[in-house]
């Protein structure tokens, strides 16, 4: 007791003391020395099997009366086959009517319960996310059961969503970043490769979607044996198991599931860079995307790659951002990154740049993409990038949604939360030589795909003069069909 009273009066004295006296001992000419950061502690994940081949993963966190449920179902857009866009379309319709409720009634009920449900499809799976208040657990999970097991896919709702998606293609053409991204994927991955197409498909295919085709697709891909229930929050393992089993315990697969086809088409192999230009008349900026096929998430080089990319374009002080934004003033921000999927996505470096410095910006991009291969990074850059990657990890596990999201993301690559401390340890061991080695191996600026969406009347001549490679001109209407 005395100590705390002493402490309190000491604080009071501080407050009353003359300002100068209070900080006389403080030397502001030097940055403060920091105490050691807390060790990364990941919460335990309890994994159990459920009937029907389902899995349950529970993380207890009783800080707030909240529960985050994420149901992941393996499969996803790679199952689309000759109906591109149907996975995202079907997933979006799951909560547009299910059980006894139509779309408006279902979503009204969810909101009334203070719950928030969303359903999406990615390249490698489907994800149904439900965030809820603990005390609405039972009614909200009943609705989750309806959404996953008893979606309606009514003719009227399918038509509405189909028309909305068709209008959406038109609006996508207005957004140069979106056009650049789609064109980039088309160029890096040739026809026949799944990534050649947009996850949202095309208007010709979408126009054919109807209630029966969507339902048939649903039945072949939304299946218990592919499902994992991730439950994080104010709930015990036993409660979670009972609650999920009550709604899904009798869920059994019917018919045959659609198998994920092997990817037989290789990404575009280049012997030289190639430029794709898309006109956006009177554009104030050009959107630039540069890249090539990427790498496996499970690569032994993963930690080194993340450190290398943090230095190149993965943080505010990265070379691309400091050069294109801070030093040259060409852009509001430039960056780079690897997209990790089960079948590797691309490496991409990108920025929106002022129209009249489009060519100069390309010069700077390639200068940085080559420099990190040709010259070892500084010890200072290496230390900063390693610390940045490692020490921000605890912040990735702050709330129930973040924890569930991390579990889901890692699970997609066959990894658990235990991967995070392993990653931290691997990052600490990355050397200057490792950075240069992975830069040389995984950055191929002499065989790049380069997309520029901008005012071609103003930027074409400058780009041609750079002689980056053969130039093709594409139309936004052909990219977003």
């Amino acid at each position, binding site marked *: 007791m005395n100590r705390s009273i002493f402490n309190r009066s000491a*604080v009071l004295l*501080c*407050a009353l003391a003359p*300002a*100068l006296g209070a*900080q006389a*001992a403080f030397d*502001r000419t030097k*940055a*403060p020395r*920091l105490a*050691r*950061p807390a060790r990364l502690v990941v919460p335990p994940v309890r994994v159990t099997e459920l009937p029907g081949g389902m899995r349950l993963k529970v993380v207890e966190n009783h800080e707030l009366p*909240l529960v*985050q449920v994420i149901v992941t179902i393996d499969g996803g857009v790679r199952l689309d086959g000759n109906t591109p866009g149907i996975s995202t379309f079907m997933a979006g319709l799951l909560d*547009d009517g299910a059980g006894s409720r139509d779309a408006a009634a279902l979503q*009204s009920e969810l*909101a*009334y*319960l*203070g719950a928030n449900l969303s359903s999406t499809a990615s390249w490698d799976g489907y994800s149904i996310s439900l*965030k*809820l*208040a603990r*005390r*609405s657990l039972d009614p909200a999970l009943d609705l989750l059961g309806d959404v996953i097991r008893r979606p309606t896919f009514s003719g009227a709702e399918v038509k*509405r969503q189909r*028309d*909305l998606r068709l*209008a959406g293609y*038109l*609006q996508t053409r*207005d*957004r*140069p970043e979106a056009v650049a991204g789609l064109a980039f994927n088309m160029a890096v991955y040739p026809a026949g490769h799944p990534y050649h197409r947009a996850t949202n498909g095309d208007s010709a295919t979408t126009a054919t979607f109807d209630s029966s085709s969507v339902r048939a697709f649903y039945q072949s891909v939304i299946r218990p044996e592919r499902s994992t229930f991730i439950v994080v929050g104010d709930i015990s393992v036993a409660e979670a198991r009972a609650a999920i089993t009550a709604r899904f315990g009798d869920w059994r697969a019917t018919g045959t599931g659609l198998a994920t086809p092997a990817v037989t088409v290789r990404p575009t192999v280049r012997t030289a860079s190639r430029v794709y230009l898309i006109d*956006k*008349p009177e554009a*104030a*900026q050009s959107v630039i995307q540069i890249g090539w096929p990427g790498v496996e998430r499970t690569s032994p080089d993963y930690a080194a790659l993340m450190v290398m990319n943090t230095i190149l374009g993965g*943080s*505010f*002080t990265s070379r691309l951002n400091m050069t294109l*934004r*801070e030093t040259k*003033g*060409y*852009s*509001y*921000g430039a960056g780079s990154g690897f997209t990790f999927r089960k079948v590797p996505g691309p490496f991409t470096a990108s920025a929106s740049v*002022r129209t009249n410095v489009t060519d100069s910006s390309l010069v700077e991009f390639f200068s940085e993409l080559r420099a990190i291969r040709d010259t070892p990074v500084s010890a200072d850059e290496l230390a*900063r990038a390693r*610390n*940045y990657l*490692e*020490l*921000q990890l*605890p*912040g990735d596990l*702050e709330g129930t*949604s973040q924890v569930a999201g991390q579990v889901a993301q890692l699970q997609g690559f066959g990894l658990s939360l235990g991967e995070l401390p392993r990653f931290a340890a691997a990052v600490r061991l990355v050397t200057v030589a490792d950075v240069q080695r992975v830069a040389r191996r995984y950055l191929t600026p002499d065989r790049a795909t380069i997309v520029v969406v901008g005012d071609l009347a103003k930027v074409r001549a400058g780009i041609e003069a750079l002689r980056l490679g053969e130039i093709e001109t594409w139309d936004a209407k052909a990219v977003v069909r």
Partner: protein
Amino acid sequence: MVPLAPIMRYLLLLAALPAAVLAQAPRLKVPASVDTLPNGLTLIVHEDHSVPTVATNVWYLVGSGDEKVGRTGFAHLFEHVMFMGSQHAPYPEFDTRLEASGSSNNGTTNEDRTAYYEWGPSNALPLMLWLEADRMGWLLPTMDLPKLDAQRDIVKNERRQGVENQPYGISQDILPPALYPAGHPYSWNVIGSMADLSAASLDDVKDFFRTYYAPNNAVIVVAGAVKTDSVRRAVRQMFGDIPRGPAFTRPTPPAFTVRDTVIVTEDRVQLPRVYLSWHGVKSFHADDAALDLVSYLLTGARNSRLTNTLVYERELATNVNAFNGSKKLDGDFAVVATARPGKSLNDLTTAIDEHLARLATEGPSARELQQARNAIEASFLNRLESVNAKAEQLNNYYYLTGKADGFQADLDRYAAVSAEDIKRVVNTYLRGPRVTLSVVPQGKKDLAATRRTVQ
């Protein structure tokens, strides 16, 4: 202004967090200690030891509303200049030192305040405070024109990316001066005009800093795995000798009535979009919460009135959104709808006006109103999961109400709104004169909204 993202130092991509909760919810409590240093600096500390992280949230109580004629965009430009180094932490140490500690940072400017954020592992707090103190007290010794010019270029690029190169971006320039009278602090776009950004001088930077960037015009929130006493000691050590700045008064917005205005502009877009904008109320005005609920009743969920009718039943619009844009000094309310291919904006405005008339006459059902309250309550509880979000809210409540832990009091406002209140505020604010802005594809002015219908 309404459907704008805050003007930020750089883009931060946030995944949309799902929302949760409802009735008989636990009382929301975010214990926060508030104290003020002799130099006028206010410090708010909230302890949350759930994960070893910390967020600092520094607000200077100045925004675009304080700008002078011919210097629109300056408050935000100044925000950028604050990252260009200070006497003991020369450029680019602000960023390099934070990243080396595992921390991130950003800044945002709106009409009423400029905010600076750092977040990262809790052991990095002394570094965050030291950097904030250095730029609060020692920015000018190393400030020069090249630094201003560098950030001027970046802000112009930000404007190009967020306004010129964005479909419908032009609306951000058109709406504020159309709704608010000349001289009103909200009558221009936060990011300013290219000409005014070009005109900003080094003297402007110095004057602005000396007037507004003083401890007595700043509030620091520290939230996270920290001890209140040691935060107080550190803040006194690092900020205690920064001198108090001059007193100043924020502008007083003139009372005004919107003149019914119809504006049509062409843009390189595929589909026409209409913006309806009314004069609203300021934050925490007696009708503020009711107008928030109105925006939910109109477009907050799939079954909300405008969403259900315009997007789904009648298939007139691809999307529709309502916003209650209440701010510190004044406010506005907007409905924004994009037409489906082949639909005219008059079809949309007619349907919107019909719904407003009906809501004003019949009011919401009990169930509808409770859904809106529950959804808002859910978003409150979700915010409590993040120290960054809590820090931001503590600063916001302190600025607007004088009380930091205003979470429950804020939520109580929504519980107190009745169906009669909803009818009244729709009648009072959304049935009178407004700005009608149509943004149409080039050469398609015939698609613009031209007339008032049910008024």
